[in-house]
């Protein structure tokens, strides 16, 4: 996993609630056995019309936001299935962080495990960002170390993140390697509960 800390980019305003994992990555693209290559299918049925032509009304097709690293959406982002293909697709497309008032639990976990930074901000703060971002391209500066999102106009929002996940993300640690250090505890547990 790549370490993550500072992100400086224009934000992409996806002004929708309850964006579900079926929209993020549709099931017809879940058959691949690799972790990579899902970006071109991100929000496929919103980006493309049934005839395959791009839907220019969809925000990801708006050239003003091309190359953006930060996706901003409304509450309950990532609800639905546990498919990790969802954060893989978001990351593979080029995003490094997603900002929303709330995330579905499994999706949030899946982001953290892949070094995609999920940021919870209060609903009013997100609405404000969405308004600014829709009006004109709006730059954000994220610092994971400081737990802040700084807008181009100087507005600063702080966010909370579990200190354990923060360390994992800042250092890009492999969680499985860390857990191997607890092997004696796992063995002891198995002995104690007769699971050995």
């Amino acid at each position: 996993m790549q370490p993550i800390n500072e992100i400086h980019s224009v934000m992409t305003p996806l002004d929708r609630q309850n964006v579900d994992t079926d929209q993020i990555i549709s099931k017809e693209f879940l058959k691949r056995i690799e972790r990579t290559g899902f970006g071109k299918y991100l929000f496929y049925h919103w980006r493309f019309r049934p005839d395959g032509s791009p839907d220019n009304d969809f925000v990801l097709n708006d050239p003003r936001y091309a190359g953006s690293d930060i996706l901003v959406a409304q509450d309950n982002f990532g609800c639905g299935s546990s498919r990790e293909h969802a954060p893989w697709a978001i990351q593979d497309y080029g995003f490094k962080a997603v900002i929303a008032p709330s995330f579905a639990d499994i999706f949030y976990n899946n982001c953290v495990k892949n070094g995609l930074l999920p940021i919870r901000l209060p609903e009013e703060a997100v609405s404000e960002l969405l308004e600014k971002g829709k009006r004109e391209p709006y730059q954000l500066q994220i610092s994971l170390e400081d737990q802040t999102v700084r807008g181009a106009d100087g507005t600063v929002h702080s966010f909370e993140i579990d200190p354990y996940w923060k360390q994992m993300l800042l250092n890009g640690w492999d969680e499985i390697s860390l857990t191997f250090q607890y092997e004696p505890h796992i063995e002891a547990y198995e002995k104690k509960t007769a699971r050995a």
Partner: protein
Amino acid sequence: MPKTIIEKIWEQHVVYEEEGKPDLLYIDLHLLHEVTSPQAFEGLRLNGRSVRRPDLCFATMDHNVPTRNRNIITDPISRKQIKTLQENCEEFGVPLAGIDHPDQGIVHVIGPELGLTQPGKTIVCGDSHTSTHGAFGALAFGIGTSEVEHVLSTQTLWQSRPKTMEIRIDGELGFGVAAKDVILAIIAKFGIDVGTGHIVEYTGEAVRKLSMEERMTICNMSIEAGARAGLISPDETTVEYMKGRRHVPQGAAFEEAADRWRALASDPGAVYDTTLTIHADEISPFVTWGTNPSMGSGIAGTVPMLTDFDKEADREAVRKALAYMNLEEGVPLDSIEIQHVFIGSCTNARLADLRAASEIVKGRNVHPAVRAIVVPGSASVKRAAEEEGIDQIFLDAGFEWRETGCSMCLAMNEDAVPAGERCASTSNRNFEGRQGAGSMTHLVSPVMAAAAAVEGRLTDVRNYLKEPVPSA
């Protein structure tokens, strides 16, 4: 201090705890399927790691398998995914019920059938509907592929203690009301994200009277309420179901286990972070009209008016949903014509579900404008249904009787609803495109789906049922 079942199971599984860190939890059962596991096994290979406890894993193929002709998988990528699971299970020694195995089926149907699912266990699977197993008083939750890899390597997961929520269902369920209606009504009343960050325990008089199949339907859709997991304290119904199942201890050992299971039930007076209540009187046969499971109402209702919603964000969400669903505001729900009926999925494809639906279609015919399919939840459900003659009832009425799998719930195989067509479905999600690009889903119970198949539109199943004569 009195404890909830959630706290009891959690405490029994903590391998390591430290201030400022999540708890390291031991996992008793790891279920695997072909879609969310290949990248995890690949991760093991790349790092030279092995599966720590293959004996605590069980794999099957369900998401991608064909339900018509078992041996013809036309899509080469699907074929590769299925072959990959087979090879991974062989390489790492993981037990597998493959496509032709007599135990094959939807992962959340076969776990309980085989007795792998047991009260008090921690159970994970790379699938959000793992919450189904909570019906037995197990702590069961869906995980992503990175976590699948973590469990394969270490048989543990780092988990922060979630908050606890009680959803109490008071009173007695009314005539013609199914478990599916209960969970859809709960989600409609409390919202699609009410359970976020929580594990839900379903309690109350109505719950105690439910069969294990019905409890599974309710726990299955906990994730549609945003909950990490949903469970029900074990009781005699649970113990009775477990008896004689293949992976369950027998004889004296069974009685010991049963006592342990009974002791897991939440203590009287246990405190939850949140308690919500719904009365059975509020629940009638339900349908969804929108593009998430909270957008639903009793069948006697109508598609809502935009003016019913106070917040502009909600109006906008409903506007988008109605545009996608091609529905006008205020339309009576029982006037909506459907072209497809799907009876299947981990929510509603157990023997009791198929039996109930078959009672409705017995001696009747599927409407000529409707294509209706039944996809049993497992090979074992299919065999049992065929022994009872349930398959013939469906076939005589004009249903297709298929092989088992996830099928049209998510349409990863060729079972899809075409664009612009409507399906009354016993599955769990009505998201845009869920059953096929441009398809429109109305979530219902098995008996409501059966009645819709006959009528060619959504309809109140109570008109098809004889009200039982009240006992003196």
